């Protein structure tokens, strides 16, 4: 039986290869090596939750009706019976209440969306802190960044589809933000909604975006993203035998086929469990969208919450001065533009361009395939923590009424604190993080020079007590001494031999200043000479 199957398989393979030269493809891919570390699987969590979204999404499209036509609910669910609602809302109720398994699939879809966005952010943080965005992976960073933005679009259009009061108020807010854009705001609003808010065009349009345009773009970008990972080969953590010129790991077939393939089922299973046990987005409690009602605790899904927090934080009046100006009769709403348009714009642009910003400070050192331990790049790590704390403060402010209610605080006080915190906390967290990194690096130096403390005390003949230190192994030493010790950039002289200021000096000077910010304060790794001296001392 085995031989027959083998023959059949060989025959098929030859047939296909005769027509496609797939043999080369198999040769390229099947034994590709991937280094083994759990933190490399975070991107996979995003990928698999996306697959779960697609699979559950296809199920949902069989029942969802993307129409804002009004109908009366015929089902017997007590609080919805006889209520007038849009077909979009009705079909959501039918899916949840009348289709067996419909509630489960719908909840899996929504929990998976929260997981997708959370995994993307976690994966992005891992890539940032380990420096995996450096040459040649800058393009992949941009692709990943775009995927992150697309995931926000997918989530937002998705949870707005049921046309309920909670997401409808979210759309109202988007309409308000859009209208505040100077000159063209009202026209963009009319374009989006097909006229006045709420209109009848929005749900069908968002449906098309949600099931076709956005997933299409995401799938295409995932394809490029993964192709580049294969082409560049995966990065690896520093360690013995791992160089910039090799990759050490296990082959795609069979090891990662099993591990990564199996992992998909693990993600699927955990999402199914969470969806079976926990309610998410109970639209029947919010009711069909109407511009009049609103409920306490009106927030968007977590990944949009930072914009809501920014909108809450921005004051309409600062010390008696309005943040909405009227100039020659035209209204300029800084109180909306700053938190909802300008601030996210700056934040995301900085994030997207980060590989280039750091490259300006570092200069071109060629391809980097060995990752950094975060402690060895204190400024980058500090910037990362500052960015995260900035984001987290916005999320906290977005939840301010929830926090106020849960912990019996005043939401006005929370807002006042976050208004200060948004400026203070990133700076403080940068400084503290950088300091911690220096501390960790010093500790590594200590360890290399003097070894592990064993807690064993020995008394010498001449009465001296010492603690026995266990020297580090080769591998442990190598891990702690093999990082790049980067000095600030040197630049050519300002003036040439004839005293003329050279072109491009200004830009070079900027890069040098940036480089000093990054690399002037640094802890150097233990050198072999220092190590030898320490060993020499230890033997006394």
């Amino acid at each position: 039986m085995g031989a027959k199957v083998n023959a059949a398989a060989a025959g098929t393979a030859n047939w296909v290869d005769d027509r496609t030269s797939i043999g080369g493809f198999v040769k390229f891919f099947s034994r590709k090596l991937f280094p083994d570390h759990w933190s490399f699987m975070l991107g996979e969590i995003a990928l698999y939750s996306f697959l779960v979204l697609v699979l559950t999404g296809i199920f949902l499209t069989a029942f969802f009706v993307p129409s804002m036509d009004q109908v009366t609910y015929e089902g017997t669910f007590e609080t919805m019976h006889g209520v007038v609602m849009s077909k979009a809302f009705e079909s959501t109720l039918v899916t949840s209440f009348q289709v067996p398994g419909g509630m489960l699939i719908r909840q899996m879809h929504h929990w998976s969306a929260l997981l997708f966005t959370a995994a993307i952010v976690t994966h992005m943080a891992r890539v940032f802190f380990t420096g995996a965005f450096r040459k040649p992976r800058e393009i992949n960073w941009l692709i990943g960044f775009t995927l992150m933005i697309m995931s926000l679009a997918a989530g937002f259009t998705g949870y707005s589809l049921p046309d309920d009061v909670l997401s409808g108020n979210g759309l109202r807010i988007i309409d308000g933000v859009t209208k505040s854009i100077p000159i063209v705001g009202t026209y963009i609003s009319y374009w989006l909604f097909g006229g006045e808010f709420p209109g009848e065009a929005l749900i069908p349009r968002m449906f098309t975006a949600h099931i076709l345009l956005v997933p299409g773009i995401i799938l295409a970008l995932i394809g490029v993203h993964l192709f580049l990972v294969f082409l560049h080969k995966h990065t690896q953590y520093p360690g013995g035998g791992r160089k910039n010129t090799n990759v050490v790991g296990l082959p795609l077939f069979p090891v990662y086929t099993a591990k990564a393939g199996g992992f998909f089922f693990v993600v699927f299973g955990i999402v199914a469990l969470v969806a079976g046990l926990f309610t998410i987005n109970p639209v029947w409690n919010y009711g069909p969208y109407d511009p009049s009602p609103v409920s306490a605790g009106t927030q968007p899904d977590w990944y949009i919450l930072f914009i809501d927090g920014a909108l809450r934080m921005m004051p309409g009046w600062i010390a008696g001065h309005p943040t909405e100006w009227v100039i020659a009769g035209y209204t300029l709403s800084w109180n909306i533009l700053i938190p909802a348009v300008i601030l996210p714009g700056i934040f995301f642009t900085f994030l997207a361009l980060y590989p280039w910003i750091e490259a300006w400070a570092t200069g071109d050192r060629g391809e980097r395939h060995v990752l950094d331990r975060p402690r060895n790049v204190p400024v980058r790590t500090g910037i990362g923590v500052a960015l995260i704390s900035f984001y987290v403060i916005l999320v906290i402010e977005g939840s301010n009424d929830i926090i106020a209610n849960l912990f019996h605080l005043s939401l006005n006080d929370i807002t006042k604190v976050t208004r200060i915190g948004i400026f203070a906390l990133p700076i403080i967290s940068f400084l503290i993080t950088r300091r911690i990194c220096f501390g960790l690096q010093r500790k590594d130096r200590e360890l290399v020079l003097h070894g592990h403390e064993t807690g064993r005390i020995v008394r010498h003949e001449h009465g001296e007590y010492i603690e026995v230190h266990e020297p580090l192994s080769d591998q442990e030493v190598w891990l702690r001494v093999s990082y790049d010790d980067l000095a600030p950039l040197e630049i050519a002289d300002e003036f040439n031999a004839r005293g003329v200021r050279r072109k491009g000096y200004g830009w070079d000077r900027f890069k040098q200043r940036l480089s000093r910010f990054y690399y002037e304060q640094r802890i150097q790794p233990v050198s072999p000479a220092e190590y030898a001296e320490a060993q020499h001392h230890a033997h006394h």
Partner: protein
Amino acid sequence: MSTEEKQHTNSQQHADGQWVDPGLPPHRPRRADVDPKAAKRAERQVAALFGLSILGTIATLTVYFVQDQTEEVASIRLVNILLGISLCFAMLGIGLGAIHWARTLMRDHEMVEERHALRTSDENREIAVQYLKDGAEDSGLTTSRRTLLKGSLITAVALAPLAILVPQIGNMGGDWNVSKLRHTMWAKGTKLARDPDGTPIKAADVTIGSVFHVIPEGLNDLEHGKLEEKAKAVVLLIRMDPRDLNIQPGREDWSFDGIVAYSKICTHVGCPVALYEQQTHHLLCPCHQSTFDVANGAKVIFGPAKRPLPQLPIAVDDEGYIIAQSDFHEPVGPSYWDRLKGTSPSPSASQEADA
């Protein structure tokens, strides 16, 4: 770590005053690699996990066919939990089985592969550049007499997408009539009615401390555009002790007996402002916490909004019903660029009270 692995070969580390890479750590075999009984046990564990998955699939299908879900809360919840747990086993079984197999039985001896520089060789780059140059020459565009060709090509290609984009975008905006934002359904004599049932409100019904959620009478009868009109026309009718109400200058006849009416659409980004605190007379918007002081012209006292809520001038008709005297004197809802330009619905001496 075992002692043999801790090699402190000092000589290796000091070659040329540079650190020397100690190479890959020695491979440690797993129990299943050396002990056939352990391998067999691992195999049985993997099979058991796959078996768990099969049980999970059977359970899922059983629940699906056996369930008799009604639209009762408990019934929906039960089916949901059962399907969720069995689906979890069905999937987790395969996942954990495959992973356990990879961890215990599959190769775990690391391999090494060399990386090649990504850039194409200089030689190939030169050839590529040469091909491009050849192609440019073959196109006949390299002589300077072809500027007309190039110019007209670029112009045509740049303009062509407009033929699609302009109708595509243009058709999506409805009637593009943004001036509709200036007007609501409220007009002289429109009765204030309860939201959502639409019955008109008598002044005598509005006792001190009351809040009525209000729509214009006739809104519920609209065949088209009901939600669009409602999105601009919703109003809060509040009565406070007249001694607490500071009537704004120029608006003396817009309210009576401490009964005031304000637009319910927040002037920040348009959420319904509805949290009225009876004792402080503060009105809180739940979306971004803009707070308005109803006793003082609904001006902003906290939060991101800048403008006070527009006030609806109201009066009582001869039957005792509360009516509007006119539309709002300014566009309701969030700000937009030309909000203050153009004719306002009811030009009057009292403009919005703000700094």
